[in-house]
């Protein structure tokens, strides 16, 4: 079949990132052709500053070399800009005359430096700071001449000035306003920055309006509106960028300040997508990579025909990449009316921190000299966290919330897994730690390769290194392996879960074929996982495969160290009757159970049952109305309850009754891992609901819902999900939460690590959306219609009889 043709105009950071994301989702969908105006393969533009400062070489900043294009069968045309888009004939025309037809087009032409049109602006020696050619030109000039003027005291201008000084030039920065980096810094922080840069030998001319570039052929000086002049052999204009959209506009695509795109990153021509600095989205043009990478993800999602992602804009933060200067800024850092500001100033130590608060929420942050908590403040800002509880110590940083703190390492350790470490690529602490632990990473390079953290602007390198230092050597890992699923496969759990759904794979053999398994029938790790994924995705259709189940689930009992089994009947909500107890007692007598015990899950365990006896024993128990407790399974285990309102003098709701209802709804369901629930009748919480996968704490006005807790090896207290008012709502939220977990978690991943991995917010968002919640709950209840068949009864009636009978022979 002829593949669709995708053409990318602009071989830069946003465009190629889109292609990378697309290849992850749909590697074989398109024949891809990339046109780049520059003569290089895709490189990291951000790193031009360190290249200029001599800290890196051009080779170090190549992101995808030519071999990458070849490996992915992408046709790359460098140094051949597109000059025209013919939307009627659906083709692009390059400067060389080459033509390339497309089915879908992606425009990512970036932006161009703004050159102030003063007299003399076109003289030799006047340049912008945008690409490798500019850097080479600066380096070459620095080798032959002495004086440079950088016009513009913003981020880019200061990085250029810093680089030129390092190359031995005499540099003056001319800035129109009286304060540097006014878009990122307030005045006190800007003053500190200026003082530091001056101490490094940089000259400043503040409030300086450029009037003319003087020279004859080559630039000799810059003259300002106040009449003063500064000698210059090189003039770098760093006063702003202009989105590069002339190509699109000439093709009749609607543009304002940039190419207009929707939340799906489509232009007004639905075949044409655009990402990066050349676009305008909801009125905003971005000039930093983090938002562009978000855009790339969305565009790729739609190009891959998934059609589910939306780009809704980004909040950005900035750091300056001048070695030895720590500076961070985010949000609205100049207070408006009604805002409050918290300021910490220690001029001797060169530290300045300011937070702008509105309604006890962080709206903006500026930090100079000590930026370690930037990631934390940025997280509080984006999540709109109410900081009133720890407002008094907020400025001292996150480590101050807990213990006394032990320097940087303690502060990084204090960051939650959700804290963003790498702003460019949106990589969170949890993901990095996860990758280090699960993939056995030891070096910065490996972390970059696996997580992309620290692979763009590099300003988080210190944080990543601290994480490496604190994580490596710590052996314990609670969560299951992440990637690949097992030694038989190359794909991750997530890819396989998605593949089963997207491609309608309904048998284990089909999954193995689709994902090119290396073994014929898998192994003891992947078979149970696939069996679960298929069972949960196709309830009622997929037939459970007994031989892919761990023996406990195959025999519906818990294998003991001596090869016997334990049997645990369900006691819904921990309630029982005399006749239940009598049936259990009778079974113990009849099958000579050596020991009985009340479990931590409020029911009775009978140990040491011989496998051959299991079917008959179950038969007796099921006849007495007792069903399997699944005490052996990756399944719903127990719903623990307390005495509650009926008896307890403090109880405010019927916790026991609600627990029974929850257990009746959920018993029999297979899960990625074991799943426990509890209901406590009041906040005294006797049922320990706050260390369960799903916990309910009754309060006077309703029910507090909690998720993601567990006891066990590593205790984790639940996160509070929300409060609801009726039992029906408890059941609906519970079903929806369980179903989301069943559909998305990795096999053998309990809710606690799952919640930490995907983020509480993701789950909250899904469950607070009424339509999504109801749909999830409905899918759960549907799957339960197939799952609530007592396996004991089925076995007692003769199913899988061979499993329990030995073949006896007389000889040998």
């Amino acid at each position, binding site marked *: 079949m002829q593949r669709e043709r995708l053409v990318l105009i602009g071989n830069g950071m946003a465009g190629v990132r889109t292609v990378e994301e697309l290849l992850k989702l749909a590697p074989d969908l398109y024949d891809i052709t990339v046109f780049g105006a520059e003569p290089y393969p895709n490189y990291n533009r951000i790193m031009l500053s360190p290249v200029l400062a001599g800290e890196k070489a051009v080779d170090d900043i190549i992101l995808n070399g030519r071999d990458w294009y070849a490996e992915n069968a992408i046709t790359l045309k460098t140094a051949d800009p597109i000059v025209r888009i013919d939307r009627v004939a659906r083709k692009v025309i390059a400067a060389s005359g080459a033509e390339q037809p497309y089915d879908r087009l992606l425009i990512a032409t970036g932006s161009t430096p703004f050159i102030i049109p003063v007299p003399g602006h076109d003289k030799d020696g006047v340049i912008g700071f945008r690409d490798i050619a500019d850097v080479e030109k600066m380096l070459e000039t620095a080798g032959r001449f002495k004086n440079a003027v950088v016009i513009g005291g913003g981020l880019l201008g200061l990085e250029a000035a810093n680089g030129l000084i390092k190359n031995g030039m005499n540099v003056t920065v001319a800035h129109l306003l009286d304060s540097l980096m006014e878009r990122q810094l307030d005045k006190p922080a800007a003053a500190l920055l200026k003082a530091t840069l001056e101490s490094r030998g940089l000259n400043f001319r503040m409030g300086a309006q450029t009037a003319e570039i003087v020279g004859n052929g080559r630039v000799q000086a810059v003259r300002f509106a106040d009449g003063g002049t500064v000698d210059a052999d090189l003039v770098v204009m760093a006063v702003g960028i202009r989105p590069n959209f002339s190509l699109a506009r000439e093709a009749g695509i609607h543009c304002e300040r940039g190419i207009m795109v929707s939340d799906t990153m489509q232009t007004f021509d639905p075949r044409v997508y655009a990402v990066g600095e050349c676009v305008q989205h909801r009125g905003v043009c971005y000039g930093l990579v983090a938002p562009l990478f978000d855009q790339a993800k969305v565009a790729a999602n739609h190009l891959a025909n998934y059609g589910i992602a939306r780009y809704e804009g980004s909040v950005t933060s900035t750091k300056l990449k001048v070695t030895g200067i720590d500076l961070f800024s985010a949000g609205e850092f100049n207070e408006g009316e009604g805002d409050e500001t918290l300021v910490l100033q220690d001029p001797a130590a060169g530290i300045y921190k300011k937070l702008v608060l509105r309604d006890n929420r962080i709206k903006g942050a500026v930090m100079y000299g000590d930026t370690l908590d930037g990631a934390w403040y940025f997280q509080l800002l984006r999540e709109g966290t109410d900081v009133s509880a720890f407002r008094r110590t907020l400025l001292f940083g996150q480590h101050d919330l807990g213990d006394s703190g032990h320097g940087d390492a303690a502060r990084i350790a204090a960051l939650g897994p959700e804290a963003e470490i790498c702003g460019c690529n949106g990589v969170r602490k949890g993901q990095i730690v996860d990758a280090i632990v699960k993939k056995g990473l030891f070096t910065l390079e490996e972390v970059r390769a696996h997580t992309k953290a620290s692979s763009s602007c590099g300003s988080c390198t210190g944080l990543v290194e601290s994480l490496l230092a604190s994580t490596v050597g710590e052996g314990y890992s609670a969560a299951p392996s992440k990637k690949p699923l097992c030694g038989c496969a190359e794909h991750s759990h997530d890819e396989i879960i998605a593949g089963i759904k997207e491609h309608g794979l309904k048998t284990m053999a089909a999954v193995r074929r689709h994902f090119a398994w290396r*073994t*014929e*029938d*898998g*192994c*003891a790790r992947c*078979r*149970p996982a696939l069996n679960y994924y298929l069972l949960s995705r196709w309830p009622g259709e997929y037939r459970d495969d*007994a*031989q*892919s*189940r*761990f*023996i*406990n689930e*195959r*025999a519906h009992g818990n*294998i003991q*160290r001596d*090869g016997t089994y334990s049997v645990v009947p369900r006691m819904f909500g921990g309630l029982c009757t005399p006749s239940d107890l009598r049936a259990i007692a009778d079974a113990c007598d009849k099958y000579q159970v050596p020991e009985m015990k009340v479990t931590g899950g409020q029911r009775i365990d009978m140990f040491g049952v011989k496998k051959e006896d299991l079917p008959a024993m179950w038969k007796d128990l099921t006849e007495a109305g007792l069903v399997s407790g699944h005490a052996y399974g990756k399944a719903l285990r127990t719903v623990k309850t307390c005495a509650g309102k009926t008896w307890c003098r403090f109880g405010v709701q019927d916790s026991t009754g609600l627990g029974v209802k929850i257990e009746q709804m959920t018993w029999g369901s297979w899960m990625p891992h074991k799943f426990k629930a509890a209901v406590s009748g009041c906040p005294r919480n006797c049922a320990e609901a706050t260390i369960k996968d799903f916990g309910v704490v009754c309060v006077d006005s309703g029910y507090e819902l909690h998720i993601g807790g567990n006891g066990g090896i590593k205790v984790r207290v639940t996160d509070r999900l929300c409060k609801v008012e009726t039992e029906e709502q408890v059941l609906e939220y519970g079903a929806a939460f369980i179903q989301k977990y069943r559909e998305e978690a990795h096999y053998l991943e309990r809710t606690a690590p799952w919640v930490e991995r995907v983020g509480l917010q993701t789950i909250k968002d899904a469950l607070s959306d009424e339509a999504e919640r109801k749909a999830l709950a409905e899918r759960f209840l549907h799957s339960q219609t197939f799952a609530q068949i007592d396996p004991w009864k089925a076995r007692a009636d003769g199913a899988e009889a*061979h*499993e329990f009978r*030995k*073949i*006896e*022979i*007389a*000889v*040998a």
Partner: protein
Amino acid sequence: MNDWIDIAALSDIPRLGARVVKTATVEIAVFRTAQDTVFALKDVCPHRGGPLSQGIVHGNTVTCPLHNWKIDLASGEANAPDEGCTRTYPIKVENGRVYLGDARRQAA
């Protein structure tokens, strides 16, 4: 011919599963692979004696249910890095019936 004992039909053993054959002195696990090859091992894991018949069968290997050692069905050897070996027994399939070699003669 007397050396072989008819123990079961091939179809009595689940594919990728096992049955236990109990003799007067020993329990033997008889495995059937996806390709219908059969193997017989003493039903005792070289690690801590786990019942291998209850493990998951994949390729020509069984993973012990107690601590996940992987035992080669043909040789009875544990896969590296684990070390240990379980006794194997001769076994064959003819006309859909499974025959176990007489253990007394084996031992001799």
